[in-house]
């Protein structure tokens, strides 16, 4: 709306392919934001959708090509424009000395952001990347570059440990100190991590997704069954032990 534009018009500074369906887009925009927060990305004439921040300065987004909107984004080249509003939602809070971060799919993005922030504190995070198969595993090098221990779990055992991420996480909890759990990924994975947290009486922070419109708690689109609003109350949900 100009004097107070609803969206920032920005340009894509860099595109990095992560794998066959995921790419990371760095924009020429800096925001003040916390890991776990998201932005609404608008492609005029296409759609506007929520995307988690992988970094906020500059704004960096890691996006899986899954449908019309994400395909349109993947077709944009360096120097082309996209529009952003936000950041929205509540990010992760720091809990515990030995957090275990469980990521599924593009869920690695906010957890990479979180890892960087945790490393500025006294915490010693461990990251567990879950994926169907080796070619879905991304961000191993990005986490590696931060010098955090990285575990990988694939459903078919084609990379790292064979098994579902929550099961592999359970084994990690038995073999190393874990003080809290963080997870971002498909909802069944979040359910698995929530159950794990209850079993081990660990505080957990789970990042949810829902279809969104306003992104600021007005339209009711993103409500879970219990009336919890993913955009405003979340996307991160705290499960106390």
């Amino acid at each position, binding site marked *: 709306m100009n004097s107070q534009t609803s969206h920032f018009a920005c340009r894509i500074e860099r595109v990095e392919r992560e794998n066959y369906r995921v790419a990371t887009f760095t924009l020429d925009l800096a925001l003040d934001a916390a890991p776990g927060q998201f932005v609404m990305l608008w492609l005029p004439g296409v759609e*506007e959708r929520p995307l988690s921040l992988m970094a906020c300065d500059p704004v960096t987004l890691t996006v899986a090509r899954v449908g019309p909107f994400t395909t349109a984004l993947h077709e944009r080249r360096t120097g082309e424009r996209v529009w952003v509003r936000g950041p929205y939602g509540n990010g992760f809070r720091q809990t515990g000395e030995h957090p275990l971060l469980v990521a599924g799919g593009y869920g690695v993005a906010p957890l990479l952001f979180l890892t960087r922030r945790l490393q500025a504190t006294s915490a010693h995070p461990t990251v567990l990347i879950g994926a169907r198969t080796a070619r879905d595993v991304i961000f191993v090098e990005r986490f590696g570059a931060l010098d955090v221990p990285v575990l990988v779990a694939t459903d078919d055992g084609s990379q790292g440990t064979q098994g579902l991420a929550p099961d592999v996480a359970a084994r990690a909890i038995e073999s190393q100190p874990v003080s809290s759990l963080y997870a971002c990924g498909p909802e069944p994975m979040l359910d698995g991590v929530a159950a794990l947290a209850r079993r081990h009486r660990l505080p957990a922070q789970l990042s949810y997704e829902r279809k969104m*419109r306003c992104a600021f708690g007005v339209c009711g689109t993103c409500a879970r069954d219990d009336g919890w609003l993913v955009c405003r109350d979340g996307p991160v949900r705290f499960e106390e032990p």
Partner: protein
Amino acid sequence: MNPEITLETNLCGVRLPNPTLLASGILGTSAALLERVARAGAGAVTAKSASLEPRAGHPNPTVISWEAGLLNAVGLANPGATAQAGILRDARSKLATLGVPLIASVFGGTSEEFAGVAQVLAEAEPDFLELNISCPNVGDEFGRPFAADPQAAAEVTRAVKAVVDVPVIVKLSPNVADIAGVARAVEEAGADAIAAINTVRGMAIDVRAARPVLANRFGGLSGPAIKPVAVRCVFECFAAVSIPIIGIGGVSNGLDAAEMMMAGATAVGIGSAVYQNGPEVFARITHELATFMTEESYRSVKEMRGAAHK
């Protein structure tokens, strides 16, 4: 809160614990959300408008904020009348113990459709049916809203009144030359109450995209920017009709609520203010209203009603 003050509100014989109510289309998409808002302090809650068939609504962007309010063109996304009746039934049982009335909102493309939806929703036994004849965001599909014309507005009202017993609120549009005329027409047609106002038709263009921001191009303005328009509309309606008025538009604090009542509102709808404060806005506004009443020696909200007409 001063014990001598009562916020209790009588709207068409239905008791509201306080005069603030959730406006339609804000958070009212599920029974759990309606209950949440009631628990947060609303005196009544309005569900999202429902149409006969399910509607996906417009593509995004559908809701944006700017300095002085919101601009939206959700496009009446809803699960259709039958599913909505289920939501309403669920909501009603959750609200019963809280003593917070439920308002169902009806949308249709024709008078007959309005009546049809009203009948389906009435089966869920909400405390009120509100007729949304004033949505500015579906013009491409449905043409000008019924609220643009006194005759059309009266016809819809009559069609619904003929088939339901529950009190009927007709929600008016500010996008007309003479809202008082429309208010008079729906009163004569049997409306039990008026809600004023729905959003003000507006548009925002992103100059770097050189195109309208909303996918629907046009949208409805709400929030602080429209409060003076809403106050004026309520004032004009109060002078024109004797049925109660629900004042809606830009109310974001207790003094705004008092202003609406002094213009002539019996109850005060709140929508966009949820943006800044979340559902807790209802408790805050009610508290601020009570403080104002204590300071100015009003003992009941009724004493404020229409005070600015003297």
